[in-house]
């Protein structure tokens, strides 16, 4: 037993920095998806089960864009930057488009009727199944490797850990988007209306906030980040119609871990989950790596259901 742990810790201490770097990169992707859950939870008090398909649509849209832009050419430095920006934007807009459609079709009719919570969940699950199976039908049921606008070579090393181009890109894109979202919600008029609706929608509407518009914009914001995350994820893992399921489940875990409804919590939860999962490789057989995130989810829900930073917006009931 002691030997078991000491050998695993030896692996961990030896591989600590590479695992940390890789974990943080994954964590940024989780954080970007988790924002979508947390924003929607904030204004609607419900978990957007179909967010995984927002992620998937972003991945597919940018996949086709990359294929069309790059083809078999090798982009130069300027093109790399331009293509990356284009990929993030197209992935983000596709995600936003799917998210608003979702809100319009699967949620708004129920909201008009004040439907019970179970109805939202079921409607979202149905929408999710519809979207990813439609993607399967239209694009095929195989994993497509995405044409990459850059060559993934190590740029520099930290404590012996090689930091690859891919990680740096995720770090840059992720931080820009997360910080600007945070500022947007904290300072802009739109952000103020989102916070007002999250506080108390009835009062907000009395104060002149257009609730429908605010909710739609919340879906757009969350969808944009989710779609862009789908692009970043697809760069490394390729795109396939079921690609949303596992990352979305983990991002949801991240949102709960940080405290659902809490934007910064989602970021902290995402990064933490990415690192934990990455470190767990030293202890857990690779086939069960998905169990780790799930175990984290169950433990958090059982022992601290409000997450690390607390559930800022939510009622506890």
């Amino acid at each position, binding site marked *: 037993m002691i030997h078991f742990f000491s050998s695993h810790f030896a692996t961990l201490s030896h591989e600590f920095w590479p695992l940390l770097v890789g974990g943080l990169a994954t964590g940024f992707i989780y954080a970007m998806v988790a924002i979508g859950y947390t924003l929607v939870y904030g204004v*609607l008090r419900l978990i957007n089960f179909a967010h995984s398909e927002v992620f998937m649509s972003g991945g597919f849209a940018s996949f086709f864009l990359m294929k069309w832009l790059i083809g078999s050419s090798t982009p130069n430095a300027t093109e790399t930057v331009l293509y990356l920006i284009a990929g993030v934007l197209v992935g983000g807009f596709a995600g936003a488009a799917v998210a608003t459609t979702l809100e319009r079709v699967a949620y708004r009719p129920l909201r008009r009727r004040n*439907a019970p919570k179970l109805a939202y969940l*079921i409607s979202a699950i149905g929408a999710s199944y*519809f979207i990813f*199976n439609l993607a*399967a039908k*239209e694009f095929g049921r195989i994993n497509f490797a995405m044409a990459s606008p850059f060559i993934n070579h190590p740029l520099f090393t930290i404590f012996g850990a090689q930091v690859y181009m891919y990680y740096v890109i995720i770090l840059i894109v992720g931080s820009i988007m997360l910080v600007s979202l945070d500022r947007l919600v904290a300072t802009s008029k739109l952000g103020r209306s989102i916070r007002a609706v999250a506080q108390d929608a009835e009062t907000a509407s009395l104060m002149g906030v257009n609730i429908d518009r605010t909710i739609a914009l919340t879906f757009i914001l969350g969808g944009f980040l989710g779609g862009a995350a789908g692009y970043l994820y697809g760069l490394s893992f390729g795109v396939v119609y079921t690609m949303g399921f596992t990352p979305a*489940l983990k991002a949801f875990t991240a949102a709960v871990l940080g405290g659902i409804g809490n934007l910064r919590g989602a970021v902290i939860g995402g990064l933490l989950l990415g690192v934990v999962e990455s470190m767990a490789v030293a202890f857990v057989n690779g*086939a069960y790596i998905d169990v780790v995130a799930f175990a984290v989810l*169950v433990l958090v829900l059982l022992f601290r259901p409000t997450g690390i930073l607390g559930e800022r917006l939510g009622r506890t009931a």
Partner: protein
Amino acid sequence: MKNFFSSPLVKRVGAMVALWATVTVMTGPPGNPAQPALGFTSSFSERVSFFGLFPTPRGVLFAALGLILAGIVVLYRRILHTPVQRAKASIVPTYQSISAKRSVRGSWYAAALVVAIMLPHVVTDPFWQSAMVSQIAIYTLLAIGLNVVVGFAGLLDLGFVAFYAIGAYVTAWVTGALPIGAPFHHVIDPFWAIPIAIVFVMIAGVLLGVPTLRLRGDYLAIVTLGFGEIIFLFANNLYGITGGSTGTNQIPFLSFHMGPIKYLWGLDPAPYYYLTLGFVVLFLIIFSSLEHSRVGRAWVAIREDEVAAESLGIYPLKYKVMAFAIGAASAGFAGVITASQTLFVSPPTFSLTFSINILVLVIFGGMGSIVGVVVGGVVIQGFVVYMIQSPPAWYNPADLYMYLGALLVVMMIFRPAGLIPSRRRLREVLQVESGVARDQLTTHMGPHNRVEEDLA
């Protein structure tokens, strides 16, 4: 411009155009990975025969069909079903005593049972005979079980398939078909796998339920979903115990052997059908008497208002765990039948999509309505099997879940209580929607929190 887009007519036309495009793409030819837009464009432009008359693009055909349908609806509303008639229909009472209603209902049930018993003699096509067990009876049984959890207790369990998997794997285990070997090196008569599997599954239900059922509804859905995936992962990877991704194909047919009575279920699906039918009836009787018992009333109380129920002395966790375990029992039995009829178990059978399929049956039939769920199971699965056997040109069985997903959304928008609603459920939905019991509403009822710090 803004007024234009928010006018009801424009909105309605827009919705109809969107519906038309969606249906056209859904039923259109599959796309091509190399040309992503091809599937969409050819869905509209592909030429099909217009009712066997002349070839026309599919888009036009669907538009024509939609217009005809809309015309029928308008005619029905204008001519046959005027507001006066509608109002009259709602106030004219039906002079039928409760006992008379009951006896009418009883004879309906008896008739349905007779039809179900006669069915294998009427339907002799081997494909349908086999499908009646593996696709219809088993699925209906599972739906009846999930109905206890989702319908009676109001808990969304997305990992229901896990119990089904446990039932099947326990069968393989006690008959010595798994690499791990039979328990205590003693292979038993497969028939006894039924009670053993049911006991195991109920224990699993309690083990899963006790920690997770404290969570609120949406969290519970995700956690059960994860549980289903974990059972799948273990079944798929524990080669030494479950046989891994290939599973096992060493399971014997069911056999019953006690004293002088011997019976062997074989290749013929009919005996399996009768066994399953017997258990369906048994579970129906048990579940419907539970529904009207103290336990069933406790479930309703918890579902409608957990806090109020608790203050009346109902311990929610206890009844929720009961719902989990009792609902799981039918899944355990279904697992035994599946394993011993198909003679093999392997992980792909027990994926998440299966849980969703069962959920669709429950939702379509009507949450909490036992009759509804049975009808939903038979109708949907019968239709699915029919579409597998003789698919029309526009349907590819691989796209089944696309249609089921769309069905879920449509049901939730237009008929949330299901095809044959349970009266209590219908009342609840209407009540919540009309604003009674506001605490249950999901939207916008948050307490007044600190204004500035939130989200910032």
